């Protein structure tokens, strides 16, 4: 297998992790923990595929996926923000709901085939040896992910909206007393996060593996949540982290040719995620680290005005 093909598959796999992770980073930066990522991704994947199959338009399918993700995230927002209920349980409910929803939405399309999103080589850049075929001869969603990283970075760290988001996530009372509409910002971030999850789901069934089967995500949505931590809530490190996991995914496939039983190879992403979480947990427990980086201080804490 040519190294370029390997590299290209890594990019494909990584993009699936990257887009929802960026969304989750946005949500968590505003203080909302969205554990419904898995449900949002998988139901968007099914919905996107169904719509694309029925209408023949990938664009409509993608939009449908984003809408589903956004809608589910909105429900999470209502329960967590307006009703200030437990964000963990709310997120879990949405994952469960989303899993069921995916079955419902995708039931007529199991085994159907659509024309996948075509790769579009970028003129000029795609001619670079190695980097060209690997990074610059991909489909438009992959390019979107490249753009999203600096855009999210810019929003969070170079715009007024970004400092507001970050303050809301660290100390919403401080933001509120300075006139910030905490509720609006949280809703914005949570729903945007959901939309990006939906985009990731659409990517799965419209670009990566253009088909629909139940349980396609294989629980990888949960890896997104772990990735948010591994990325230390920063878009650039999210990029690095997603690519590391992309590498793991591809290694998985290549190991299948060795003698190790498939089952153990399948455990790899989950066990490696847990390992990352242990290491990061130890790292983040150090006071000197925590005062500079770490989870937003108000993460998962409902904001009540009085």
């Amino acid at each position: 297998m040519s190294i370029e093909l390997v590299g290209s598959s890594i990019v494909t796999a990584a993009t699936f992790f990257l887009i929802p992770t960026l969304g989750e980073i946005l949500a968590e930066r505003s203080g909302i923990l969205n554990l419904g990522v898995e449900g949002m991704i998988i139901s968007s994947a099914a919905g996107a595929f169904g719509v694309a199959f029925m209408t023949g338009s990938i664009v409509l399918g993608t939009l449908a996926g984003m809408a589903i993700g956004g809608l589910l995230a909105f429900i999470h927002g209502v329960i967590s923000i307006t009703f200030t209920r437990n964000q963990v349980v709310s997120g879990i409910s949405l994952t469960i709901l989303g899993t069921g929803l995916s079955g419902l939405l995708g039931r007529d399309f199991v085994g159907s085939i659509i024309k996948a999103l075509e790769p579009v080589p970028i003129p000029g850049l795609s001619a670079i040896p190695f980097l060209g075929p690997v990074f610059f001869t991909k489909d438009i969603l992959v390019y979107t992910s490249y753009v999203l990283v600096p855009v999210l970075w810019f929003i969070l760290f170079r715009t007024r909206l970004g400092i507001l988001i970050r303050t809301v996530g660290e100390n919403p009372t401080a933001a509120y007393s300075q006139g910030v509409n905490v509720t609006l910002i949280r809703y914005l971030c949570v729903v945007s996060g959901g939309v990006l999850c939906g985009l990731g789901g659409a990517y799965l069934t419209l670009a990566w593996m253009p088909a629909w089967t139940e349980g396609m995500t294989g629980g990888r949505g949960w890896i997104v949540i772990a990735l948010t931590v591994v990325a230390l809530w920063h878009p650039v490190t999210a990029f690095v982290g997603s690519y590391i996991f992309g590498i793991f995914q591809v290694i998985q496939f290549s190991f299948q040719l060795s003698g190790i039983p498939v089952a153990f190879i399948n455990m790899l992403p989950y066990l490696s995620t847990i390992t990352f979480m242990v290491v990061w947990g130890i790292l983040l427990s150090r006071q000197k680290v925590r005062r500079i980086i770490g989870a937003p201080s108000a993460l998962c804490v409902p904001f009540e005005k009085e």
Partner: protein
Amino acid sequence: METILELRNMCKSYYGDGGVEIRANDNVTFTLKKGEIHALLGENGAGKSTLVMSLCREPDSGTVLLDGKEVELRSPRDATENGIGIAYQDLSRSLVERHTIAENILSLSKGFLFSLRSVEGAVKKAMVEYGFGDLDPSMRVWKLSGGQKQRVEMLKALITNPNILILDEPTSMLTPPEVEKLFSLLQSLKDKGKSIVIITHHLEEAINISDRITVLRGGRAVATLDEAHVSELKKEPEKGIRELARLMVGKEVLYELERRDQSEGPVVLTVQNLCVNNDMGVQVVNSVNFEVRSGWILGIAGIAGNGQRELVESLVHWRDVTSGSISFHGTDITNRPIKEIRDRGVSLIPENRQRALILDMSVRENLMMSYYSDTPGLFIDRESMIQKTDNLIKQFSIDTPSPLTPVRSLSGGNRQKVVVAREMARQPSKGKQLLLIAENPTSGLDVATTQFVRQELLKMRAAGAAVILVSSDLTEIMALSDVIAVIYKGEMIAVVDSSSATRESVGLLMGGVVSGPSVPEGRGTG
């Protein structure tokens, strides 16, 4: 001078007490004249902060008039838009520790983009203008001292260029020279035509700086002293303090507590070279030494934020000791498990009431917390628990409809009684005395409960327990302690016998003023 702000017939009540209504503001009317400095005085819980909060949220009833026109201020944003700037008391809810000073001042980043450089520039300019020039806007807030944080908070309010400035307890963490600087700043603001409300419970400061004074007590405005009256007070501050105290508390003799002389008992607790870090990893207790004897009350006096909380938490291992040792009845208890320390006979009435009570559990279950594991084995001895908790309720006069009422339904005073009862009635092993640590045990309580708690502390002392009283209330310290230790910036800068200490001398020490003939010889620090 015309009135620029008027709060008329303000009412705000809190419920959640089994139907009992706590009137935080009971028909309060407060006026602020243009260009004046008006002090709002009152004990903890008198309703000062609540009154001011009515400027950023809707009260139950009442009207707010700005320049004679009625306005509706429903959120902090409304307040800012109407030219009111507020510097809050509770900095943990006002500042983001992880961010820099510049990042904390949100009002500066206008428009779409956020350029750190331009914001820092604007902050620097404002700092110089208001006399805070020694702070670096790119510094992270967690690195700042308490006084510096308070100045950042004030800057946040000033930078919006408000016409009306409200300062809630702005001097609680300032040293005397810093207080001086603040007051000259307030004077210059007043000269520029700003109107200022300063909320405080420091009587001398109020007399010093204000033109008029309003006193709140129990949710009501009991007096508004006009300019003439206040200038009288300025001439004779000692008399003025007494008069204000009377208004604040409601009776001439404040404390009828009897602290009888008793002979010294043996040393029960020895603390040596103790060093403790705060949540951000900064060392806030610097090599502290002291000892406590049975039958003593050691009062640790100090302005809030000088390391007392971390010190107390390290004694019971709610927080790690980084170096040094704590020895109790001769055994080293440094960093031992919390349960072990408690079982050995250390009780704590914490300042943070969230950590002391489980609000949704009943009074009985909360009282049980200290005793449920007394009997060995897996099971709880129900009979004994019922008996014990019923006794405690009676003994400490806890006002509750039934032992099974959730603590959430109790008033603040009664909740504290539950904590007090639970911690004081513990019996360590035979022959050993209890060490009771009380951290600001009466803050925010009504007068009756405050009196009750103080009397109970004295009772414990008489029974031979060793008591550490940490308080930022100097009167409380003076009335209750046998020995007073003053903590300043994490160090015990003096340990003095309470009989030879005066309010003034301790007050100076609390502000870090160590040298000078008014500091008496202290008992050894061990």
